[in-house]
């Protein structure tokens, strides 16, 4: 047990000292058992602060250290390093969190001081009982996994692979590309999306260091930083891709059709299909929901036309296991279902489009070869774009989706470019053009004659509906049945306005994928209140997560545009590389172990461990724990009826002592 404890109380500038009476805490600490020395310092985490602690350890022979400062999640590592540099085992340090859980949450200085004293006492009592522990070092597996083949995942995979790291890229869909593959042009530069994306996709497909697993999903992840074991399920494509030469005869001949997911249902694809012409991999899959063979019919068309004989209706899902050192999760987003907002008439009126539908309508490779046409084939004379569909809206998503203002401008431009005569109205609350070149793009669109109306569109009526309900006061001259009426208040005029248009484009919010919950659980990545994956720190660790070795990139972390998604993809790859470059990681030795003499052989613990780290030695009639598998959660410790399992650094004695300390003040 330690007998010469040094206590350091940090002011953290005014962050702590502004509320807590630091000298009083110092005095109280002096009176605590086994405290040899008690000092205050302005910024304990600074170099001179750490130096002071090191000097004291050496000069006074301190054998345990308490730092009362910010949360251990902030600086425990910093102080452990300092303590270690002075020759003390880093586990002989104890942090008293008097900032995040003290000075910052308490207004009354007297109460804050009292609480700080108690927290320090808890740490002092605990420190006395802490024991030296060794860090374990584990080798890092020189391989990476990227989940999600949108632009963020593509970028991450290419960066990793280019650095020589064997990388597995898992994509759920039959092709990589994500949403970007659906766009015709990208704001604000108006580059053609396919022109900048296709080369990257091809590079992924051909890279010697990338193992692309499309039409696949991660089933489970086990292990820990440096050594993740990942099981990946490849869905049966019913086509042997090693034989298929991508000729496409099957797709031409297949007689059965279903709405194309890629074209947002605006066109048809076959039962055997690739989602789009530039797909990577460019090998078809058979959709069992559409193929009639799965309904007991006897069609053989594809088999007949496939020269290399690649069609294989016997194919089953296959599962592969890979071991990787780090993981990048880049699973992207989904657009909100616009039907949730009944007043905007989506799903009720054919000429109300979602943004993605409009992307396809406008795409040269889309259902209309890029001609902007209504469903009944007319060229629209006027189009209304409605911003903030479900974004910045507490009924749906409180946050701003960050891309809609910009792609609304993009659409306005494309309409203007293709249909010179058409009038474009953009209904907005605020135009948010924060990125590089974005405000300039806005100005350009004003110059192109887009009519901006400041007022969120409140209601969309079908022309026919409108005529049935409007009275004389609401009469709109020349309104045709197939048209739409957009109603809003132009708040700059203070007038209610009704605009008859031929087409309405909505901008549905960017939201977390419906299965983000499940995916987050698989990779132990938590989610914020908005549903997106949570980064370790919003400013300082934007692509790291609280799960070491797992990084996030792109729109799965929050709404973002392509430049930001790419930047995060590279950042995550950089992080993963940095980890791999270390070759080994130190993991805390805070595992559990069985005290042989105390184990009664009751086997209670065996089923408790989520990692199967506990095994039973029938001969000796004792349990034992594999410390490589143990993650140190302590669940078995709490459940052992004989108190025979010890959680290193979280022993009963240590926690009891901490409680005694907390209650001693």
């Amino acid at each position, binding site marked *: 047990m330690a007998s010469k404890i040094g206590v350091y109380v940090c002011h953290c500038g005014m962050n702590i000292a502004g509320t807590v009476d630091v000298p009083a805490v110092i005095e109280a600490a002096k009176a605590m058992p086994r405290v040899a020395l008690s000092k205050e310092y302005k910024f304990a985490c600074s170099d001179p602060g750490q130096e002071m602690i090191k000097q004291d350890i050496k000069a006074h022979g301190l054998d345990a250290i308490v730092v009362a400062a910010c949360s251990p999640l902030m600086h425990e590592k910093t102080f452990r390093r300092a303590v270690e540099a002075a020759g003390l085992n880093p586990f002989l340090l104890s942090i008293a969190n008097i900032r995040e859980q003290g000075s910052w949450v308490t207004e009354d200085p007297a109460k804050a001081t009292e609480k700080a004293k108690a927290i320090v006492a808890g740490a002092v009592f605990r420190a006395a009982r802490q024991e030296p522990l060794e860090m374990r070092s584990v080798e890092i597996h020189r391989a990476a996994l990227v989940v999600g083949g949108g632009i963020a995942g593509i970028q991450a995979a290419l960066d990793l692979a280019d650095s020589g790291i064997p990388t597995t890229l898992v994509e759920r869909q039959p092709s990589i590309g994500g949403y970007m593959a659906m766009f015709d042009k990208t704001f604000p530069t108006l580059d053609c999306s396919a022109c900048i994306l296709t080369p990257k996709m091809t590079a992924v497909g051909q890279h010697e260091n990338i193992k692309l697993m499309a039409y696949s999903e991660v089933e489970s992840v086990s292990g820990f930083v440096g050594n993740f074991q990942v099981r990946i399920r490849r869905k049966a494509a019913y086509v042997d891709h090693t034989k298929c030469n991508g000729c496409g005869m099957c797709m031409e001949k297949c007689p059965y059709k279903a709405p194309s997911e890629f074209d947002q249902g605006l066109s048809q694809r076959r039962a055997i299909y690739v989602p789009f012409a530039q797909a990577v991999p460019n090998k078809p899959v058979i959709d069992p929901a559409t193929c009639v063979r799965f309904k007991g019919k006897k069609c053989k068309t594809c088999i007949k036309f496939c020269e290399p004989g690649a069609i294989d209706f016997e194919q089953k899902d296959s599962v592969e296991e890979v071991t990787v050192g780090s993981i990048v999760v880049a699973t992207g987003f989904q657009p909100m279902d616009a039907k949730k907002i009944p007043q905007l008439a989506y799903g009720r009126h054919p000429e109300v489009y979602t943004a993605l539908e409009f992307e396809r309508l406008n795409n040269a490779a889309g259902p209309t070869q890029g001609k902007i046409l209504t469903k009944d084939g007319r060229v629209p004379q006027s189009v209304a774009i409605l911003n903030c569909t479900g974004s910045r809206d507490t009924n749906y998503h409180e946050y701003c989706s960050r891309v809609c203002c910009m792609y609304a401008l993009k659409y306005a431009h494309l309409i203007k470019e293709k249909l010179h005569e058409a009038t474009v109205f953009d209904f907005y609350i605020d135009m948010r053009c924060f990125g590089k070149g974005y405000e300039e793009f806005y100005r350009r669109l004003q110059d192109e004659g887009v009519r901006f109306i400041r007022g969120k569109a409140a209601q969309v009526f079908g022309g026919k509906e409108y005529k049935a309900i409007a009275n004389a*006061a609401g009469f709109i001259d020349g309104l045709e049945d197939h048209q739409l009426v957009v109603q809003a208040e132009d708040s700059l005029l203070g007038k209610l306005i009704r605009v008859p248009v031929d087409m309405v484009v909505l901008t549905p919010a960017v939201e977390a994928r419906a299965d983000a919950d499940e995916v987050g659980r698989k990779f132990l990545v938590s989610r914020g209140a908005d549903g997106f994956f949570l980064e370790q720190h919003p400013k300082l660790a934007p692509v790291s997560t609280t799960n070491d070795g797992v990084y996030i990139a792109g729109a799965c972390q929050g709404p973002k545009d392509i430049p930001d998604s790419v930047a995060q993809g590279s950042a995550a790859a950089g992080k993963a590389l940095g980890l791999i470059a270390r070759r080994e990681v130190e993991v805390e030795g805070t595992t559990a172990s069985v005290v042989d003499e105390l184990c009664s052989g009751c086997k209670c613990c065996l089923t408790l461990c989520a990692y199967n780290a506990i095994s039973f030695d029938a001969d000796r009639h004792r349990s034992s724990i594999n410390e490589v598998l143990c993650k140190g959660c302590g669940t078995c410790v709490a459940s052992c009826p004989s108190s025979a399992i010890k959680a290193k650094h979280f022993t009963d004695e240590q926690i009891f002592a901490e409680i005694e300390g907390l209650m001693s003040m």
Partner: protein
Amino acid sequence: MDVATPFIEVANAIVEAGGKDLNLCYQCATCTGSCPWGYVEPLNIRQLIHLAQLGLEGYESEDLWKCTTCGTCKTRCPRGVGIIDLVRSIRMMIGETGLIPLTLRSALGSVRGDGNPWNGSRVERNRWAGPLQVPIFDKARTEYLLYGCCMASYDVRSRKIVEAAVRVLRAAGVTFGVMGQGEECCAESVRKIGEESLFERVAGSNIELFKAQGVEKIIVLSPHCYDAFKNDYPALGGKFQVVHIVEKIASLLLLDKLRLERPVKAKVTYHDPCYLGRHNNLFDPPRMILSKIPGLEFEEMYRARELSLCCGGGGGRMWMETKFGQRFSDLRIPEALAVGANVLATSCPYCVNMLQDSRLNLNKEEAIEVKDLTELVAESLV
């Protein structure tokens, strides 16, 4: 152009009077664009809110009393602003300066004196129960208090609704009684007019009375009573289990306690009352009930469910004169006719009244009838 200087004290006073969300409004204008007044003579509720944010006046005083508290704006407001609470608190402040419209003052006076807004006498209340042999509520013998609303006691048309309700509830074996003496108006509209203290007094007296009689469950016919009992009374200590007759009928049908066997030959459309639908999310039960009536054909209007058009009777408008050409209910009749309906059903005595008036004013007696859903259910009993 006018010059204005913000008067922040006024803004703060509005917040204190209950308009706690005033400062959250980011002026997106969804509210003005959604308000049913847009169909007749637009009400710029967005601007009214912004003026209030700066403590300014400058709106037509008439505008403030236009709001029917239909809730269309409130349910759509992307900032979740309790717009109706704002309207209430602004009205409250105006009310203190005595600027309440005359007709409203008379209704309020009647509530104050007679416990109802219709200048009816107290002894008339619940008199309808006598001929129908509805007993006085007695917690040992009756499970529910049937709260008929002032409308049932003082309005001839509404009496038919309560009669239908009595038949239906009896047919299903529900036991219920009415309050003997002392019951008053639910005061829902009183609160929306901004007369908070009168509301508290009247509601308080009801709560005391109900508690003293051991009332636990209440069946109401009006969505306005429903809203008051359910959403306003608990804060004053009145926590009762409140069911609207539509909810009750729907659950009786589900439990197979009620059989609708007599065919009702009619083409029906349904008008969602603001206080049942938007305010309390009861959109499905009425449709479920209609689907169970044999022989009945049902057609939705365009403005259905969340999009329903206010009848114009809420928020105190029931007691105000609305100019011809500005009555929302006058728009609803042609809308119902346009879908080919010969019965316009709803489930609120205010709506029934407003729509009935429009039907007569527009000379559509031949073409369409206005009925409460409860009446249709009663017709379908054998």
